[in-house]
């Protein structure tokens, strides 16, 4: 059970908002390292900790309040020019920020934050005093300031002059907590202040009072993770949805009236023209509404990006490299669920780039490159998909070495290796068990990452590819659909039955002509622009009987392979709204969609179909040759 029974909503709000705030602070800290005297930056960071402290107070999270308060005090002195940012104080500040994030982690699990590391608190206090952190850590917090300010507070009482003074004083030194306020302002409390329990219930409003046994377990809620399923939407966008629904209502009324007219026998040109107009209008409005609703799920990817510069900086520092992460296209909007699922893959790509992509300082100097390397994280929308780039200016990838490595690891055979071109060789890093680093570093881990990155991107219906230039750098390109709700598909037919395949996998459609089909090891293949591709029939993949000779092939590209999917005919493309089959999901079917004529179409999950080893065996050439053609070739 959680320490926050009855205040989950408040906690949720706090975590979302304070989390964003802390990411912002992290970024500003990276900027601060570059321009340590920027008053604006110092002020912003000060305000960040100050705001988090204020919210944490209402959650009764004393440890978090203490930590934020100390950090805030340090920034107060920094922004007032009483202290200046040094490498040592920067390290303390970063450690404090990390500790704040840890405490958010505790809150997310629904437990009160643990006590902050004593050494950290001591060095913060030392830094506030302007003492070098090393000696400060050894000395206990000097009590001098406490006495000084405590002595100062009686003066406050007597210093009152204005007419409001009495009132203001009683506000501060109010009955509830007479001295804590003054002490808190003066020196960070050594122990967490335990505010009266009342504060919690009060902050929650009526919720807590509604429940008689507040401290008892509250039932269903999982304490494990207070995960945020809510979304913050700009009211302007919601207004747009509301407007459109209103207009659709009006058009519906218009159609109702027209139906009445038509049913009562009016079918003159004017009525039909009005009907045509109303239907076109409805068409337009519905697609506008779909877009507007989709937009409510869209969030700027900057929210995700902003936590990376700090991560890149820390990694680079650990490895003794000088790396700057440059962000671009932060305003690009992407489905909220995707933002969350992209977080880990991008972290991994950044780690990989800093660790393996970027050369050491000496190697860079030898190659005549500037000592600071630039890592770019960029997002942009291209048509109906989103492209995310993680690009380094490092040494680039060596296809030959990658192949040798994969063979040495037993992931592929020598023969396979020799057939791979550069692009395919780069893709070897996505194989499970492939790790390029000779030694296992604690930065990039044990090579469990890249295959997981690709799997995660594929789960989002996306694709990842690698472009690399020796000596110039490597770029990982992630392609993602705008949303997971709508899937562009190609409709293909097997006999009279239509099926939908994701358009993202389709490279081209071509006719299958008998003289283009070759037999390689008992399997039918086709040569398309010099590339030898196996032919797999859709009937074979589905386990259906082949009733006629397939007339067309769809050139499909998955991350592992390209092949020609043989089909009877095709019926065009469509934007499918996927309805998932929750309880009943046949193998190889991702979901269903409805065509304009009301027919239900199965959307195929190609990956699942291809996973079946038997289906992958391919078919003999003869199965693709019409009867008389066979006679000629035989």
């Amino acid at each position, binding site marked *: 059970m959680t320490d926050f029974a009855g205040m989950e909503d408040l906690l949720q709000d706090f975590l979302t908002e304070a989390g964003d705030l802390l990411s912002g602070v992290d970024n500003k800290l990276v900027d601060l390292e570059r321009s340590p005297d920027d008053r604006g930056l110092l002020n912003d960071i000060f305000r960040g900790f100050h705001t988090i402290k*204020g919210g944490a107070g209402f959650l009764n999270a004393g440890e978090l309040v203490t930590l934020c308060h100390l950090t805030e005090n340090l920034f107060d002195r920094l922004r007032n020019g009483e202290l200046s940012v040094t490498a040592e104080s920067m390290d303390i500040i970063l450690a404090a920020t990390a500790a704040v994030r840890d405490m958010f982690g505790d809150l997310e699990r629904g437990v009160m934050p643990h006590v902050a590391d004593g050494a950290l608190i001591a060095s913060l206090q030392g830094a506030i005093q302007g003492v070098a952190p090393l000696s400060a850590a050894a000395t206990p917090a000097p009590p001098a300031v406490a006495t000084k300010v405590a002595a100062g507070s009686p003066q406050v009482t007597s210093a009152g002059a204005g007419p409001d003074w009495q009132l203001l004083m009683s*506000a*501060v030194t109010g009955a509830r907590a007479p001295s804590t306020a003054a002490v808190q302002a003066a020196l960070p409390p050594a122990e967490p202040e335990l505010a009266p329990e009342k504060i919690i219930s009060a902050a929650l409003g009526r919720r807590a009072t509604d429940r008689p046994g507040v401290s008892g377990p509250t039932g269903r809620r999982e304490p494990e993770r207070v995960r945020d399923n809510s979304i913050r939407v700009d009211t302007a966008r919601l207004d747009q949805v509301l407007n459109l629904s209103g207009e659709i209502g009006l058009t519906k009324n218009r159609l109702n009236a027209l139906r009445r007219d038509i049913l009562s026998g009016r079918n003159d040109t004017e009525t039909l023209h009005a009907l045509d107009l109303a239907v076109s209008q409805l068409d337009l409005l519905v697609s506008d509404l779909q877009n507007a609703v989709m937009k409510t799920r869209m969030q700027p990817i900057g929210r995700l990006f902003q936590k990376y510069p700090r991560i890149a900086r820390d990694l680079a520092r650990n490895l003794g490299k000088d790396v700057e992460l440059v962000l671009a296209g932060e305003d690009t909007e992407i489905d909220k669920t995707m933002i969350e699922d992209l977080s880990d893959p991008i972290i991994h790509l950044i780690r990989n780039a800093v660790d393996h992509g970027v050369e050491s300082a000496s190697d860079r100097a030898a190659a005549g490159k500037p000592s600071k390397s630039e890592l770019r994280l960029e997002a942009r929308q291209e048509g109906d998909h989103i492209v995310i780039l993680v690009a380094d200016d490092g040494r680039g990838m060596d296809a030959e070495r990658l192949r040798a490595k994969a063979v040495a690891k037993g992931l592929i055979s020598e023969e396979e290796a020799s057939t791979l071109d550069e692009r395919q060789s780069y893709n070897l890093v996505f194989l499970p068990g492939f790790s390029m680093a000779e030694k296992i570093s604690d930065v990039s881990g044990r090579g469990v990452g890249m295959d997981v990155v690709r799997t995660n991107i594929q789960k989002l219906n996306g694709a990842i590819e690698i472009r690399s230039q020796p000596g110039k750098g490597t770029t990982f390109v992630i392609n993602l659909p705008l949303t997971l709700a709508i899937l562009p598909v190609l409709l293909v037919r097997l006999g009279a039955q239509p099926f939908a395949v994701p358009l993202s996998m389709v490279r081209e459609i071509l006719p299958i002509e008998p003289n283009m089909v070759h037999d390689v090891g008992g399997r039918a293949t086709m040569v398309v622009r010099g590339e030898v591709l196996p032919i797999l029939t859709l009937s074979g993949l589905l386990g259906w009987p082949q009733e006629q000779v397939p007339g067309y092939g769809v050139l499909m590209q998955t991350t592992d392979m390209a092949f020609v999917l043989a089909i009877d005919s095709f019926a065009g493309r469509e934007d499918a709204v996927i309805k998932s089959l929750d309880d009943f999901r046949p193998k190889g079917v991702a979901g269903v969609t409805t065509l304009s004529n009301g027919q239900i179409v199965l959307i195929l999950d190609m990956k699942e179909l291809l996973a079946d080893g038997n289906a992958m065996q391919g078919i003999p050439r003869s199965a693709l040759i019409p009867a008389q053609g066979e006679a000629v070739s035989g």
Partner: protein
Amino acid sequence: MADPKLRFLVVDDFSTMRRIVRNLLKELGYANVDEAEDGAVALQKLNAAPFDFVVTDWNMPNMDGLTLLQTIRRTPQFKHLPVLMITAEAKKENIIAAAQSGASGYIVKPFTAATLAEKLEKIFEKMGRSGAA
């Protein structure tokens, strides 16, 4: 004592905090609450619609609470508006600055509904005495 018709403007850049204050006010019987995320937005809202009470945070981007307070006191049509400052700062200088700028009250985070009720009570009392209300 609570006049449920009183229109409150809660100013804070942290929406969680606005929600806390809104809930506390609701608990005290004040349901007519609008929100603004900084001093500049607050001034726009004050100019657009009548309010009876301003509850503001101190530390905010764009325009902080103290500047908001000073602007309110300088503007003829707002100058009698009660302004309650809410902040995590309990420093002497801050309280003096708030008092000198004409804050009607000052309250330190975190606080309870009872504390808030007490502050509001005092402010209403004083307004009643001076005949401003």
